[in-house]
């Protein structure tokens, strides 16, 4: 029995040590790369980069505004920190990551999705593992600790023991780390301004062109936390509702957040890639509309 347990222990130890080496290498290459947005934000900007604005949000934030166009037309400097498949809590994490990495921005334009107007589910989002190389930072660790559920919680423990997280998310971390080792400047589905555009396709829709009208109040408590955090960083929060296909949202805004509501601004399937995302044409139109309102806010301040 002793021999059996010794053998099992020895093989587990060897596997564990080899695994740790692979994890260490993967973590190193990923942390030095541009592959995912959190790493790009840390590595791309020179220290204490000062921007005029950032755009935060989910895939709708990532794909709606052409940041390059805004910068050239309005003479400002901005960056898109949005990441797909995220909810408001992980967007807040990204905002913190941007500022805690030494950057500043005068305005944070937060692209608010309709599902997060009132509250957000307390769960990890699909792409939160992308912050793993910063799990030793307190705001990342606290986020994982608060939102990860289950028995092992690989991301929460990744601060001390990253092997489980790299194993559990192997497809999402090990392979990109290999890519990062070969091409450290490769960016995964975003450009140097942080934007991403869907392929130029028109949404095929058979349903009758009846615009759905929605009444919603903006009262998600996380928004207040974001505003308070941004104030400590001398940044102002602006809420932006990007265009939806066939959906108009009438908003009540009891907390008086500066708001740009373009939910129903684009009519017609020719502007959309799918019901939530614009295509190239939609992006141009949405950016033009956004610039008008954003410029007005800039002037008013």
């Amino acid at each position, binding site marked *: *029995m002793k*021999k*059996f347990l010794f*053998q*099992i222990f020895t*093989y*587990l130890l*060897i*596997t564990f040590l*080899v*695994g740790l080496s*692979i994890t260490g290498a993967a973590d190193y290459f990923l942390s030095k790369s541009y592959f995912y947005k959190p790493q790009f934000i840390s590595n791309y900007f020179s220290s204490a980069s000062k921007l005029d604005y950032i755009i935060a949000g989910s895939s709708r934030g990532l794909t709606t505004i052409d940041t390059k166009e805004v910068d050239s037309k309005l003479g400002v400097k901005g960056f898109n920190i949005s990441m797909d498949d995220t909810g408001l809590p992980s967007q807040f994490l990204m905002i913190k990551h941007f500022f805690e990495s030494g950057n500043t921005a005068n305005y944070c334009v937060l692209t608010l999705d309709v599902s997060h107007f009132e509250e957000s589910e307390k769960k990890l989002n699909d792409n939160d593992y992308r912050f793993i190389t910063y799990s030793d930072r307190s705001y990342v660790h606290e986020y994982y600790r608060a939102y990860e559920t289950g*028995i*092992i919680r690989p991301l929460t423990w990744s601060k001390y023991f990253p*092997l489980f997280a*790299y*194993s*559990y*998310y*192997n*497809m*999402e971390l*090990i*392979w990109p780390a290999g890519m990062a080792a070969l091409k450290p400047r490769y960016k995964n589905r975003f450009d140097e301004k942080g934007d991403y555009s869907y392929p130029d396709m028109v949404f095929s829709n058979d349903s009758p062109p009846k615009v759905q009208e929605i009444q919603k109040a903006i009262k998600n408590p996380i928004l207040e936390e974001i505003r308070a955090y941004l104030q400590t960083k001398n940044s102002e929060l602006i809420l932006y509702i990007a265009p939806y296909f066939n959906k108009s949202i009438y908003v009540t805004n009891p907390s008086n957040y500066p708001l740009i509501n373009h939910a129903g601004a684009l009519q017609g399937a020719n502007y959309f890639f799918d019901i939530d995302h614009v295509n190239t044409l939609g992006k141009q139109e949405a950016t033009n509309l956004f610039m008008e309102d954003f410029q007005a806010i800039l002037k008013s301040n």
Partner: protein
Amino acid sequence: MLFNSIEFFLFIIPVFFLYWFPLSKNVKLQNWLLLISSYVFYGWWDWRFLFLILFSSILDFIVGRKLEFEKNLRIRKVLLWLSIGANLGLLGFFKYFNFFIDSFAEAFTFFGYPIQIGRLNIILPVGISFYTFQTMSYTLDVYKRKLTPTKDLLSFLTFVSFFPQLVAGPIERASHLLPQFFKRREFDYTWAISGAKIFLWGLFKKVVIADNSAILVEGIFENYSQQSSLSLILGSIFFSFQIYGDFSGYSDMAIGLSRIFGFDLITNFKFPYLSKNVSVFWKRWHISLSSWFRDYLYIPLGGNRKGKNRAMINVFIVFLVSGFWHGANWTFIIWGLIHGIGYLFYFAFGTNKEEEVFSLNPKTIVQVIFTFLMVSFAFVFFRSPSVSDSLNYLNGIFFGHGEAAFFMSSSRHLVMTGITFLGIIILMSYEIAANRKGAFEVSLNKFDLVLCGISILFLGAFKNHLDFIYFQF
């Protein structure tokens, strides 16, 4: 509770230490521990399932005891049919009730008399097909006086519910497994190490091959009408490896765990994808079920004792029933039918001799590939939700105009495809090497073990992994 879950590892470690340390000198206490562990393991899915397994076990135990002393043939038959009726009744109700209701209604509609019959909202108890067959074989063996019934209820309950093989086999015979519960178990280092190795190999097959394939297979089969021919062909090949990695992986883990606890389970798979024809395939695939049907259906039907024609009919019946055993759907019956036809071809022409050792000559390789393609073709029926979906899928392979290729629709899927192919190459290389040595299981040296462990850690599909396919049967 899945073997590849953290819950299972938290469960098995204390069971192992209790079993081999404080309880190692007392067989009865070891059996109590195994029984309680097995019921916890099974009840983890749904505690209500425990009543079914307890009912089936106690009924067969009592029937077995009665059969021992009963001389009256008529009463013996009544007892036998009571056991068979109860076990098949459970199986029929939980697994096939809605299928019969739907088929009945469809038949009436077909003949112009549409009727409405309500379906029942029934949850299929995990592994019911496995343990009902195991307990039935006990009663049948006792009835035929091939086996002396046990007086030890504890051992019998533990035999039926033994957690390593409870939910997906191998389907054990009482004559092989039950006596092992009576004997004192000594810890055997070599036996336990062989168990740990085969467990690791099974885990590799499950998490690296089956679980990665599963995601690709799901994507291809869900939208088969839009997929290109190549994508559909890959989908069926991946499914063949998914089901093999899944089911034989589970069997390997069951066998490995049993060895660690001092038990010996029968071999359930002997490298089936190295078979030269369908006949050989069925001597290597799900052996415990094939041999069950041989002993309790084929032979009682007359086997080959009543001439070749009758034997062929018997073979055909066995394949139909085997297909139906897998699930309440016409797709499984057609799957069984295809294999039945393939098997009969070799049966009729007398070329069903099994060659144990795989030789690397062109003729053998062509035969093996042909057999694999035929098996993959039949698996399209096994995987599809309906017969029309299966036919459309096959039609898409030969005449489809779809252009999508799910396996390369994103970088993630492309990587997954690469991992699956890599896993398949590793699997088949080890199997060919083992088969050429005349072994029934792969042998893993020190380097292989570490490689296997690292592959599981960094190539395994842990996120969104699926349950074992055969749990549903």
